């Protein structure tokens, strides 16, 4: 009996090892393949230096602009969620799930429904002021790209900064207060400094997400305003200029690596800071802070109203208009029934169910293998190389990964899609699983190692049960991310294969707006449900 258990444990461990190796290969080989064409062949890169620098600069500009918007909205929102009580505070904080569980494509559709030429706002404004032309035309330009990306990601900045703000030690601010500093001075001379690691830790991933943004740029990008990600896609899929695609992929990945490296340097400082909370937080109502001057109270109320309006118009309205865009078509709410009964939707749903669970499974297995190895080999978390390695997939975009994969497998296949998605998404699972393994005291692990017959006993009887909830949560998270991924299925273009996200994109690009909104709403509901299921396990 004991031998049989050991045999099962060994088999499971061997499988996990094979999966881990495969995912590493699925990450490194396509990355290498994506860059390799640059060094072979006789043809040269068809881009002029000026065009290359223009595209790189534009990518930086849009990513930076979006990050600034996310920070400009997210930091004030974090002030209110961390320091004040108000109706809707929990709802506002729960919006932090949106960038994770709602695909960018859906947000793009929401923006079209709200700010597009035939969007709600243009229609209302034209009717209200009897205008002949649409007053809001910013959407299909850089401003539209920056606005959509910035507001899509602001909840990320808000949640990270808010959590850090709540954890900040109050002594420094109290000392400043007693020394006569006003609240504004305290913010700029003390709080901002204390918060800066958290702000950087929130903004760098947002910058990377925007830097890699594909769908939003593809839908809203204006002529001449193209990003590295879109150009790689065009070169790899349309003009088949692999050398140029590889050059762009190399530039993009190198820039992203620099950002990931900065992120890895900031994270530990931020983590160390956030453990230093001493006093509990007394949240006051808006405008009711102790000894706040009348002017400050008015400023606080004013900022709150302004911020609320901005979030309502640029974030909540687009979210709602995805649903509204579906039901306001000529079929009304019946569009949902039509979509669900359509063969295309059923195929897409089957395709999603064929990829997302397997991709999520590969993610959690890979993440667990690495997290456990790291926990045992580097219990103090001091090995920078081992700690940084799982962040590397953050520096590779879906387009680069998909492009490399197509060069390797010649033609997109479902297993290639699953492997590519897992190779990019497993760090998301790693973060959750590693955090819960770190929460197991070292003494407990040492005792388990001493009492275990084989090292695998420790894994299966202590480590896995200790992180079962985070593993389940990570599975759901990766499931939702894979389900919402439009880029890899689009780049890999598996013949006669659709996913829900890809099907939504196809509907949108064939100008079937109501159908795409309905399909997007269904996809959104599924993603949120699976994400919520994972949250329940946390």
């Amino acid at each position: 009996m004991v031998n049989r258990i050991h045999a099962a444990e060994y088999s499971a461990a061997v499988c996990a090892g094979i999966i881990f190796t495969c995912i590493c290969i699925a990450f490194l080989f396509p990355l290498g393949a994506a860059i390799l064409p640059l060094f072979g062949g006789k043809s040269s890169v068809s881009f002029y230096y000026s065009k290359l620098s223009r595209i790189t600069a534009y990518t930086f500009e849009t990513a930076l602009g979006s990050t600034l918007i996310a920070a400009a909205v997210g930091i004030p929102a974090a002030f209110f969620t961390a320091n004040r009580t108000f109706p809707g505070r929990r709802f506002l904080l729960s919006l932090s799930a949106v960038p994770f569980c709602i695909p960018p494509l859906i947000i793009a559709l929401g923006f079209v429904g709200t700010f597009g030429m035939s969007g709600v706002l243009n229609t209302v404004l034209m009717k209200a002021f009897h205008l002949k032309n649409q007053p809001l035309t910013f959407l299909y330009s850089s401003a539209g790209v920056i606005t959509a990306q910035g507001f899509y990601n602001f909840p990320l900045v808000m949640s990270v900064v808010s959590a850090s703000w709540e954890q900040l030690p109050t002594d420094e601010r109290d000392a400043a207060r007693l020394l006569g500093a006003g609240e504004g001075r305290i913010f700029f001379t003390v709080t901002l400094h204390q918060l800066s690691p958290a702000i950087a830790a929130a903004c760098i991933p947002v910058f990377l997400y925007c830097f890699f943004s594909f769908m939003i740029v593809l839908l809203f990008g204006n002529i001449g305003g193209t990003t590295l990600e879109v150009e790689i896609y065009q070169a790899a899929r349309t003009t088949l200029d692999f050398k140029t695609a590889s050059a762009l992929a190399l530039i993009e990945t190198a820039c992203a690596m620099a950002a990931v490296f900065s992120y890895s340097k900031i994270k530990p400082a931020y983590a160390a800071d956030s453990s230093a909370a001493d006093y509990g937080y007394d949240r006051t109502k808006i405008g009711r802070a102790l000894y706040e001057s009348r002017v400050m109270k008015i400023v606080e109320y004013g900022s709150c109203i302004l911020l609320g309006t901005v979030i309502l118009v640029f974030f909540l309205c687009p979210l709602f208009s995805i649903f509204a865009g579906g039901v306001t078509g000529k079929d009304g709410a019946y569009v949902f029934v039509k979509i669900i009964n359509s063969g295309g939707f059923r195929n897409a749903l089957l395709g999603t169910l064929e990829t997302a669970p397997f991709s999520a499974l590969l993610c959690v297995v890979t993440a667990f293998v690495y997290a456990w190895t790291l926990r045992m080999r580097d219990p103090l978390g001091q090995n920078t190389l081992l700690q940084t390695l799982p962040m590397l997939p953050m520096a590779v975009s879906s387009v680069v990964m998909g492009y490399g994969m197509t060069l390797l497998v010649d033609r997109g296949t479902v297993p290639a899609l699953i492997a590519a998605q897992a190779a990019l998404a497993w760090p998301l699972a790693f973060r959750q699983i590693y955090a819960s393994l770190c929460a197991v005291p070292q003494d407990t692990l040492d005792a388990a190692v001493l009492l275990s017959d084989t090292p695998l006993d420790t894994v299966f009887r202590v480590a896995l049960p200790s992180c079962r909830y985070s593993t389940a949560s990570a599975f759901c998270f990766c499931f939702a991310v894979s389900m919402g991924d439009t880029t890899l299925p689009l780049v890999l273009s598996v013949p006669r294969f659709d996913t829900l996200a890809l099907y939504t994109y196809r509907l949108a690009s064939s100008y079937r707006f109501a159908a795409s909104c309905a399909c997007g709403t269904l996809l959104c509901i599924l993603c949120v449900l699976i994400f919520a299921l994972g949250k329940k396990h946390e």
Partner: protein
Amino acid sequence: MNSCFSAENLYRVWDSVTIDFSFTAEKGTMTVIVGRSGSGKSSVLRLIAGLEQFSVRSDGRTPVITLNGRDITHLAPGKRGIGMVFQNHALFNHLSVADNVAYGLRCKGVHTAEARKSAEEYLSLFGLAGFGDRRPGTLSGGEAQRVSLARTLIMQPSLVLFDEPLSALDAPLRKKLTADIRGSQKREGFTGIFVTHDIAEAKAVADRIILMKAGKMQWQGGPEDFSEDMID
């Protein structure tokens, strides 16, 4: 009694303890509040400093805090004329030592150069001449606490609150800092309220000791009359 400070009806309800506390302190003396962890000692200091809000009493009595005959109950913390030395120093790590000490003067609008000069003078008083350009992170625990003391006293407060300032230090350093605190009190003439759970420390610093239990005053008297069994 030549009372310079009085706090009446300090009241705050927490989940674990309800603070209901009144006391007075004579000018230039050091009153030590002793009690077990969680008895509400630090909260009393925070209520006096204005860093914590009072709870409303059902009997209608309201808190009154006076300092040198002036009602400071509803003044902002920075306008009360109170200084505070924190357990973990609460130094601003991104500023130099001199900028830390000069911070309060800068808030009052004193010119940078003048504030810096005063800061260097105060640092010398605490044996920290030449430390001005260093960062708080490079200081030892004792040095950091002396910087914190200098930063508080440069504002010449009438009342200084000490929130277990020596608890993180080893025995020889505690002795040295106790002497520093008493010396600076004689020099500056401030009234002090010192919170600690260490009996020996309390006896070494105190002119008067108040024993606090579960948020209320249990006993008060001279250090010579205080004994360790009273805490149990």
